[in-house]
């Protein structure tokens, strides 16, 4: 296994994913096989190669800094699991 259970738990925490205890062995095994598979990349000689972030090598387009959005709060919050008076409700953050 190229990844340990502790590493996988750390990755899951970074990714904000809760994993059930009984899922762990399967996740560790499959993630390890994926990491081993992508390790093939290490054999490619890339010393002077420029990393490619965009398939057409385009720069990000800029637009004039003007307000273009209208207030759609009600339409957008119609999809929220819990709202009140236009606010999103979450478990208490500050004691």
């Amino acid at each position: 296994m190229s990844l340990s259970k502790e590493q996988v738990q750390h990755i899951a925490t970074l990714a904000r994913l809760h994993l059930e205890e009984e899922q762990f062995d399967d996740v560790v095994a499959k993630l390890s096989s994926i990491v081993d598979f992508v390790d093939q990349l290490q054999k490619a000689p890339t010393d002077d190669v420029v990393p490619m972030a965009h398939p057409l090598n385009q720069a990000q387009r800029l637009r004039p800094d003007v307000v273009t959005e209208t207030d759609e709060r009600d339409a957008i919050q119609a999809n929220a699991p819990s709202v009140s008076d236009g606010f999103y409700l979450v478990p208490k953050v500050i004691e």
Partner: protein
Amino acid sequence: MAGQQHDLHTQTLAELAKGLSDGTFSARELTEALLSRIDEHDASLNAFISVTADWALARADDSDAARSKGKVSALSGLPIIYKDIFCTSGVLTTCGSRILENFVSPYDATVVERLSAAGAVMLGKTNMDEFAMGSSNETSYFGPVKNPWNTECIPGGSSGGSAAAVAARLSPAATGTDTGGSIRQPAALTGTVGLKPTYGRVSRYGMVAFASSLDQAGVITRTAEDAAMLLSVMAGFDERDSTSVDHPVPDYVGGLGASPKGLKIGIVRQHFDAGLDAQCGARVKEALSALEQQGAKLIEVDLPNLDLSVPTYYVVAPAECSSNLSRFDGVRFGHRAEGAKDLLDLYCRSRGEGFGAEVKRRIMTGTYVLSAGYYDAYYLKAQKVRQLISQDFKNAFASVDVIAGPTAPTPAFKLGDKTDDPITMYLNDIYTIGANLAGLPGISVPCGFVDELPVGLQLVGPHFAEGAILACAHQYQQLTDWHQRVPEAYQ
């Protein structure tokens, strides 16, 4: 009389457009005929997540009324189905995931807006691998889609519902998205035509994001001509997509007559290595011979880094997905876990319950390759190899006009055959991923059968050469009738 139009489901968009224009049948009759096909056959396929019957009939009536007043546009009254990754105002957009099970978008994707404005009538939204992450349509929260040619087999993925529905004649056309082959591979496995345009050619606005430097919208149809009709409407600059390209949109339908005579077709040596099923390879070679007989020149080319395209993709795509899918937090929209003890627990449990196993694997792979200490070794390295792969294509296109070869290494496999091993599943996309990494347009066109399952020929062109690959595919379809074969149970 509706009874006389019993064959409407077998007609192409181009044929249906003529029938509507000639008054042979109305948009309502056409819509009713296809809705009744969906009603009759979808239980055996599971190709649809939503069927929008009332909406479709109302739009069809609008279309008939407009036509009677002489108001006609490019796709007036013609049916379309959308992969459930395209946001549709007022209709569920689930992306095949529990986390979006109840999500209703407040707006239309640009693709939907443009097709609707041209008169297309939405019949429904199609099933797909969860968040487009899969090659077999088995990762959908709404259950797998079946292949109409053999319902024990997968239809390919991730646009498997779109491909199965078009192959089974439930709709002549569907949209799809292609991040690593998700239009072309299911098209090959279902005997349909699948077109992935150049990166940036079609707007990504309103398409649920998976991997933003690879995602591109396209179509699944039965003919290259129909794909050209739809692309003409869908393509073009959109200021709401920051990577949309401002590049003129040619007349794709008008260009279909270009003869393959003198066309330089690149045959990739590495495509016919051990990984390719021998019979699939034979079908592809027969197709290439048919084009050669029409005057095309077959020229051998190399893509020396082909074997690195799948590992490169499985660093770049998960990295981008881990970032894109961080928006699902159980707070603003989507599934929320019950009884969370604090905010962190709410995030972790909502995401843990809302995402399926494959999506979690990809998010975690992406999180790992971007994490401190591993970024250079994996993500930066993959971006460099991506440059090498892109350069390989540029070198090949210095001597050829298009590259042709297999779309997928095997015909459709059985449901469940590859679900236990992510790597064998990932290798299904070995021939399609390169076009995504390099941003190139590609099309899969039916080129025969192996054991009564369809095989696809893939054509890949340089950036913005959709016209060339569409014309080549169209000319090939004039020589063959593979695309007119209908699966036995869906005649």
